């Protein structure tokens, strides 16, 4: 539920672009810079939030994240200058997301769930975040349409305060923090020296690139190809809905099969789906098929990647280590949104970016194959025995 509110609410921010810039006389760049700043603060802040959560418990971090988030939304509503908007939407909301985003929340669940059920539990949490992304976007629009952007932001600020009591319920459950003698810096050094850690980070970057490119540019692509805006939105709604199914399904499968090979399958399916989508003539059938397939593979990567980090490096510093991997996802997201627009401006079509997405899918699938899934703590223990 924390993820549903935090990641879901964030999904609707773009909808405020038009009403806010029109009423306050800002340029789109003013708005865009604050959102870009938010992503950078989120991506960079999350490993630190994860480290604090790993060391002192996640509840306090999520409570702080909820407060920053609500305060940021409240100040967004009262921002009249670009600088105030940068501080609120950029820094405060970015810090809020660092505290109650994927890294910290998934770390809590990864630690709390027994190994046999961990993947399914992570899938369920991912499904919660996916549901938030799916439902909060039209909810945000409905608030803006009915009450105006200012009241909509105040309602969202009040809604995000619910994160605080939800986080309080997680207090005192970080038992893994005192297990073992490894320090945080030693855990980071160990992960940095592990080839699989970087392979997972790069493959997750591909995931971020593809999802943001499709999310932002798919409706425009479909309209360019002569389809109606309604069909573009239907595709996005299908992606959003089947993302819920896919997140939980991938988590469940991860409990029974090799997570790295599931990731290989997932990226390969994406490559085939994108290839068919651009090769076949566009129709309602192909758009629906693409939406459903991409939805199922959309954030299924999250429980699998997080589960793999937990499986390889243990759960003691899971929030920190997954947050570093997630930084790769955020960089990919930024590149996907930006590169899609850039290539369209340069070439007048999205074909190059679609082909690039296929190549990236194949690359990500190939990168997951050599990941050594064995538990490093067991390997370390075996090496230390005479």
């Amino acid at each position, binding site marked *: 539920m924390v993820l549903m509110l935090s990641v879901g609410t964030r999904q609707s*921010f773009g*909808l405020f672009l038009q009403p806010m810039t029109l009423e306050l006389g800002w340029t789109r760049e003013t708005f865009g810079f604050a959102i870009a700043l938010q992503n950078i603060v989120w991506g960079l802040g999350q490993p630190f939030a994860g480290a604090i959560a790993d060391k002192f418990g996640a509840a306090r971090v999520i409570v702080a994240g909820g407060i920053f988030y609500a305060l940021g939304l409240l100040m967004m509503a009262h921002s009249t200058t670009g600088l105030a908007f940068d501080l609120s939407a950029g820094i405060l909301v970015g810090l809020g997301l660092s505290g109650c985003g994927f890294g910290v929340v998934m770390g809590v669940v990864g630690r709390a769930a027994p190994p046999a059920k961990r993947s399914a539990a992570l899938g369920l949490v991912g499904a919660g975040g996916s549901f938030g992304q799916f439902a909060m*976007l*039209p*909810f945000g*629009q409905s608030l803006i349409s009915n009450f105006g952007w200012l009241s909509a932001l105040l309602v969202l600020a009040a809604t995000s305060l619910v994160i605080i009591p939800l986080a309080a319920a997680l207090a005192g459950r970080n038992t893994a923090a005192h297990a073992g003698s490894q320090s945080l810096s030693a855990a980071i050094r160990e992960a940095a020296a592990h080839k699989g850690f970087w392979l997972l980070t790069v493959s997750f970057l591909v995931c971020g690139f593809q999802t943001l490119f499709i999310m932002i540019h798919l409706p425009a692509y479909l309209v360019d190809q002569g389809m109606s805006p309604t069909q573009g*939105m239907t595709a996005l709604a299908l992606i*959003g809905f089947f993302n819920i199914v896919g997140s939980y399904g991938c988590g469940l499968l991860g409990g029974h099969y090799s997570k790295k090979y599931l990731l290989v399958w997932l990226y390969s399916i994406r490559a085939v789906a994108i290839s068919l989508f651009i090769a076949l003539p566009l129709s309602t059938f192909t758009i629906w098929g693409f939406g459903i397939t991409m939805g199922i593979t959309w954030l299924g990567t999250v429980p699998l990647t997080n589960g793999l980090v937990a499986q390889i490096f243990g759960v003691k510093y899971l929030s920190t280590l997954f947050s570093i991997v997630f930084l790769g996802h955020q960089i990919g997201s930024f590149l996907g949104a*930006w590169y899609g627009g850039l290539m369209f401006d340069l070439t007048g079509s999205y074909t190059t970016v679609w082909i690039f997405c296929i190549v990236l899918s194949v690359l990500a699938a190939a990168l997951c194959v050599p990941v050594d899934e064995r538990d490093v703590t067991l390997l370390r223990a075996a090496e230390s025995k005479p």
Partner: protein
Amino acid sequence: MIRQTHRPLVWLILATLLAYVSYLSFKAYLNPDFLIGYANMFSC
């Protein structure tokens, strides 16, 4: 804690709620206001 006998009922209520919110969300995605709002949005 939820009693074992009440669990199926809780899951049924949650599933019904999820289905209803999903239906409303699907409808909202195709609302003209949303189409215009989305056409003007960008995020990263």
